């Protein structure tokens, strides 16, 4: 049996013919297994969806009750037989509920890792290493220039700035699902216990995190606050709203952006960021390469991001490697220009 008999890449995502399902399909299909709730991986309109309870809940929050024909929740470590394939979900450490999907048949195991990071995150279960024959990896930060460093040091930089500019508001652009909550948790870990404010579009997901028992301290909607009250405070918002009319309600805001992209100055400048915070929910170059080695896989399939560099690196290590040309994955909320529409409505 060849790996392609278990999972085969198609332009709409990887497909398991044996089990009759797709993983993170970018178009509506009959049966989908979903790795995590980001909108480029979890789309509405599939017939049946298998995912962790958290991922299903987050999809329901975003798309409404009827986001799929039927749903089935599965726990980490639990296995399910679909057709001739055994499917098991393992924590991916990316966001709440995120999972790697191991598919096995005839003693051959392929792991589709979705998006992942191998560093600690107080808001989700830690990444679990799953030994396998073929490892399907993302390559969002697949260049050796991306080393994310210590997120606590980035938070220290933020808090120093808040202390230095007590009359200004600090506005942090962060993806609505996962990043925003992780940044709040990191701020709390650093001992900052003041009220933290939220853009309205982040409310539902943040409240969901809190309901799942993740301690984020006092978090309120910024809508309720007056301009003067926002001096010296921290607010989380979607990156696209950082430079919109909405941002004018803040006193002389310091524009911050929490993302792995902030490592590259040209990217930070393009977003007119004043305080870039290198905090990422994806594995960095060291994380990607270390994980590939640790899985023991002899073959690596590389999707979304900087595939070329990672394929080249794998080849230099004697691993078979190929890029998968799947269209439609990328960072949620992250488009190359600043998206302008959200927040522009009065």
């Amino acid at each position: 049996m060849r790996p392609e008999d278990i999972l085969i890449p198609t332009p709409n995502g990887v497909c398991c013919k044996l089990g009759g399902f797709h993983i993170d399909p970018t178009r509506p299909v009959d049966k989908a297994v979903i790795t995590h709730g980001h909108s480029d991986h979890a789309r509405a309109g599939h017939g049946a969806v298998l995912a962790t309870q958290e991922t299903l809940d987050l999809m329901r929050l975003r798309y409404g009750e009827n986001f799929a024909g039927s749903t089935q929740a599965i726990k980490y470590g639990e296995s399910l037989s679909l057709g001739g394939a055994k499917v098991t979900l393992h924590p991916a450490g990316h966001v709440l509920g995120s999972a790697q999907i191991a598919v096995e048949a005839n003693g051959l195991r392929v792991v589709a890792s979705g998006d992942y990071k191998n560093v600690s995150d107080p808001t989700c279960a830690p990444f679990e290493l799953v030994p396998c024959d073929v490892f399907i990896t993302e390559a969002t930060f697949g260049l050796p220039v991306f080393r994310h460093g210590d997120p606590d040091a980035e938070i220290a930089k933020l808090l120093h700035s808040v202390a230095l500019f007590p009359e200004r508001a600090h506005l942090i652009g962060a993806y609505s699902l996962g990043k925003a909550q992780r940044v709040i948790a990191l701020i709390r870990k650093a001992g900052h216990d003041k009220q933290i404010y939220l853009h309205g579009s982040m409310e539902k997901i943040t409240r969901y995190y809190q309901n799942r028992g993740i301690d984020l301290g006092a978090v309120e909607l910024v809508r309720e606050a007056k301009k003067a009250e926002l001096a010296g405070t921290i607010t989380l918002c979607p990156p696209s709203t950082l430079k919109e009319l909405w941002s004018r309600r803040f006193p002389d805001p310091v524009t911050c952006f929490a993302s792995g992209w902030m490592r590259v100055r040209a990217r930070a400048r393009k977003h007119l960021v004043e305080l870039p915070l290198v905090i990422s929910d994806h594995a960095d170059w060291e994380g990607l390469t270390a994980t590939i080695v640790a899985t023991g896989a002899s073959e690596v399939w590389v999707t979304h991001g900087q595939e070329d560099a990672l394929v080249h690196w794998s080849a230099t290590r004697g691993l078979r490697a190929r890029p998968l040309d799947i269209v439609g994955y990328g960072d949620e909320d992250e488009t190359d220009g600043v998206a302008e529409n959200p927040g522009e409505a009065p």
Partner: protein
Amino acid sequence: MKRFAELLDRLAYEQSRNNKLRLMTDYFRNTPDPERGWALAALTGALSFQHAKPGLIRALIGERTDPLLFELSYDYVGDLSETVALMWPAPPSQTLREQQEPRLSSVVTALAALGKSELPGQLARWLDQLDETGRWALLKLVTGALRVGVSARLAKTAAAALGDKEAQEVELLWPGLQPPYTELFAWLEGRADKPANLDPAPFRPPMLAHAIDDSDLATLDPNDFLGEWKWDGIRVQAVAGVDENGARIARLYSRTGEDISGSFPDLLETLRLPGAIDGELLIVRDGRVQSFNVLQQRLNRKAVNAKLLADFPAHLRAYDLLVDGADDLRALAFAERRGRLENFIARGNGPRIDLSPLVPFATWEELAAARQNPAAAGAGADAEAIEGIMLKRRDAPYIPGRPKGPWWKWKRDPLIVDTVLMYAQRGHGKRSSYYSDYTFGVWTKGEDGDVLVPVGKAYFGFTDEELVRIDRFVRRNTVERFGPVREVVHEADQGLVLEVAFEGLQRSTRHKSGLAMRFPRISRLRWDKPPAEADRLETLERMLDKIETGRAAIATANRAV
């Protein structure tokens, strides 16, 4: 090094002058000597060592990384130093790295002492010991280009703020100070007396003028004032003195106190008499003052070579005398200083330094006529290099800063044209949520009728209220978006007419319109005017022709004499 790196990192992203000051002052307050002093030296450009070339840095990374991974990374990041800073392989032990992190002071002192062959090895050791930001800052330092948007003056202002002092006080002491400036910081923190400035040729803060308008003029008596030309060059202070060894020291300072002596050796060597002249730096060829555009060509050159000196001879036109030998004249009345100045110039510093003539007048009408037509009022062939008229009270002492009343500037009327807003770009800092940078165009004949061609860009001249209105207009009338830029509707019957004022025009091959404006700003918003009625390119071309024939006529007249 870590703190210095973090400071540079933050400064590179911060747009606002005030916030840059806050960041630097905070750093100076919380960083011990001598580290902060070396940082101040780096920020003011006071460090001197052999800079590393990009080739050296490329070779270092080439030895340590896979060439394809380097190329892919460099292609993505777009900047060599930054790519190297980011992908430099981490040394095996993290704790080892933290123990050994180099201090800024040891880096700069080592750089000054290192031989050329030792540099690559030392640089690699430092890169091993630093993190991403530290490596980035180190590479900026060794390649000699900080580029974090901080002038020497701004860094000194931030240091001065540590002791609630004005930048001017630090500026006055500066020529007598050496890095790492421990005595300066001791004084600023109130732990020691003010360091004595033993500099024989110090900078003295200049006196500046307010712009006058007709209503001011009506209240003033012409008999109280002297008039002189306002030359379109750069305001400078030329100072000469003798040091403790009896050697002659001469320096040229910009209006803000920056020492620009290095760029003007031709002028400095003729500065012989001890004293301090306040004047205008100009380029004079064959006895004729050249336009600001010509001066700009010399200012833009980094390397001063024999050809540049021959093609762009520097000249000083003296307005005022602050010091004559050992006498400080600043407390004297202007009329008296003027007498000393005339005498000083007559005693001779050579032909590169001359007197700016007074403009005689008895009534404001006479002065207005001179301002309108300087050529006929005595400026002759140099009229093109005149920006306007300066009015100085006869009895006024020389007061540093911009006191209101004793000095007035009365500029010539600017050139005005009606244009149509074509593109708008987001501003920076406080204005970053506003579309505040405007590209405007005028009509010209296209293939299918009239089209607008861009002729310039302006980002000031309007009030905050007007900015809010234009911003709203831009958002509601966007036809296309390119990143931070919006294309705004600009049709014959739809669009916004901007009246633009500017100081000069020149031909340019860089612009599609073939022209470039000097110092354009929005002078009025013409909400009332349909875009079809805005000016045409031909109007600008006629203005340019007039300027050029004016110059030619003067040149011909001059040759006839």
